[in-house]
């Protein structure tokens, strides 16, 4: 059974979401504040974490930051009640995989959860290791090495980079990347993909510009000279 963790101080909303998600076949664990949320997230093995930003004690951003120091592989979906676009970007920069602004349509939440879970690699197919522009992708271990150095990537960052390496230097459109990494089409004016790319660039020590922005079209990898 797929296990989800919901960290939100809004008890009424949490219990209603529990009903909906349980009906969808997920097992939901609730955490009413940041401290408990962090503990549960680190102790239990969850497939996905739903994280509210405004929390008593440590807030969603701090929680995410501390969570990402130890646990990279679990997808995190931020639920932002704040309308500030800065908040959304900040969450993504700290390693969230996607965000959903409150109030949201619960069907949209279910769709996002499904999308994030779906792209967890299917182990029955044995994908071959890929290599391009100094990146070495090992899909079995969910590992990417850049110039022989292991990159510590979140699941979304891993999927984006894998899609780029699969492109072998061809331009991969933002929509393709969004479908590959977030399991959904990019909404108009959505900048989350740019933030993820910016995050990946920060983790590459030498020549991060080898991930090239092709204005208005997408991204591609540049083979090093």
């Amino acid at each position, binding site marked *: 059974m797929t296990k989800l963790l919901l960290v939100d101080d809004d008890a009424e909303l949490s219990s209603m979401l529990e009903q909906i998600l349980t009906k969808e076949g997920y097992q939901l664990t609730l955490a009413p504040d940041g401290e408990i949320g962090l503990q549960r997230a680190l102790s239990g093995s969850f497939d996905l974490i739903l994280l509210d930003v405004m929390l008593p004690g440590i807030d969603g951003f701090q929680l995410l930051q501390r969570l990402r120091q130890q646990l990279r592989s679990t997808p995190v979906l931020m639920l932002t*009640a*704040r309308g500030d676009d800065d908040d959304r970007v900040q969450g993504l920069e700290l390693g969230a995989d996607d965000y959903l602004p409150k109030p949201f349509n619960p069907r949209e939440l279910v769709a996002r959860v499904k999308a994030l879970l779906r792209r967890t690699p299917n182990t029955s197919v044995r994908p071959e290791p890929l290599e391009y522009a100094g990146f070495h992708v090992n899909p079995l271990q969910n590992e990417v090495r850049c110039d022989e150095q292991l990159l510590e990537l979140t699941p979304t960052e891993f999927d984006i980079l894998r899609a780029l390496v699969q492109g072998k230097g061809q331009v991969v459109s933002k929509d393709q990347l969004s479908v590959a990494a977030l399991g959904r089409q990019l909404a108009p004016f959505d900048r989350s993909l740019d933030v993820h790319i910016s995050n990946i660039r920060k983790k590459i020590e030498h020549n991060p510009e080898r991930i090239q922005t092709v204005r208005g079209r997408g991204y591609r990898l540049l083979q090093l000279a």
Partner: protein
Amino acid sequence: MQIRWYHSLTLRLLLLFWALLFAVASSGFLLAIWYAQPETAKPLPQEVQETLSPLLSDQVTFSSLTPGRLLAGNYRVAAAVTPEEGPNRLQLEPNLANTHRRELLRQLDADQPQQLRLPNGMLVGPFVLNTQRILLIRPLSEDERVDQQVNSERAEQAQTMVLLFGSLLIAVLLGIWLVLPLKRLISATREIAAGAEKLHLKRLPRRTDELGELARALETAAHDLKVSRDAQRRLLSDVSHELRSPLARMQVALMLSQDDENPDANPHLTQMSRDVDRLGTIIERILSLSRLENGLVKLDPQPVNTHELAKILAADLAYVDAKYGERVLVLDADWPTTATDDELLRLVIENLVRNALQYTAGIIELDCVRHDDKHFTILVRDHGDGVPEAQLAQLFEPFFRGDPSRHHKAGVGLGMALSLRAANVLGGSVTARNHPEGGLEVSVNLPIVPMDTIIDDEPTDTEAAEQEPQESN
């Protein structure tokens, strides 16, 4: 901090003006004296001596020569001195004694006869007659008078020049001394308006006078503004959170109460669900409006190809609804590339286009006119019924709707207001008019900002732009 009286700018200015005026006046005065100095005595020309000597020898018969007495020609006695002690030993012409006593005495002592030009005549002598030494004076000839005139004029000119250039120099120095700090204060005020917390005032706040006080007051104001802006931002996000949380719960509760198989079975629930969505949109719009109006929007200027932006916008709208894609037409025109915040510019245009999509049925044209190197206008024109002239100005007021009967069908009434505020933030304006050939035409007037004003050329890296100011602190 209270300014001590001896640090006050008034006193400083007073002292400075005084000292400088004094310096100019005294240098002019000294120069005048320098030029006005009488000429040095010259040896008496031989021919004058020869003409005078027979005359003088004729006078031996006189017991004494008293000053003022007319001798031969136009020569008068100017001074006479006898060797005997007594009250009449030295006799001077009274008028000359008043003005040129020193010159008279000096020339009486001279070894050889000399001539010296004075303003009122040519002094000649001394001559020795028996026991007396005398000085003679004659009126100046025409040539000599002219020469005299020229000399005094030159002195006046020099004085004028000293005053002119001296005062100019002082004016320039004073100007620099006063205007430089003022310029800095002006740019600091602009920095405050732009939302900076740290002002570039250099050493100005450490000055002890009123300018220093003003600089410190500006620093305090910048800090207070930052604090209140932060408070406002917090309040906005708190309000937003408090309003959105119950809405989020309502939305989930609605879904739970709806039938899974047939969600639209209960029309009341469907209506409620729509209204909850609407409330969410209204809250988001009000917050965006308030952020724009309170200067809480962080601008991220980057090179924006406006034609590209319009085309992407049209494509995005087509993605939202295929019918929209058929109705939005981006015309080929002289679309400029400018350094601006593309998100905000998109917001401006998108709201106008969406508004037109909602209120009219026909084609919506996106056009662009470049006026010169510095200004361009993006035109959004629909082919609807237009707006009554009297209501054109009200279009941009929040919650204004031209046709009240369409309240429910249309949006929340904040799109145009948002466009206007966002355009203002970008340094532009939005106006509306009814097109002569029908339909509403909204003009977005914006400046063309040259690319070199951008420091950060990495378009996707939002964090670099945010971190830079912190590092420079």
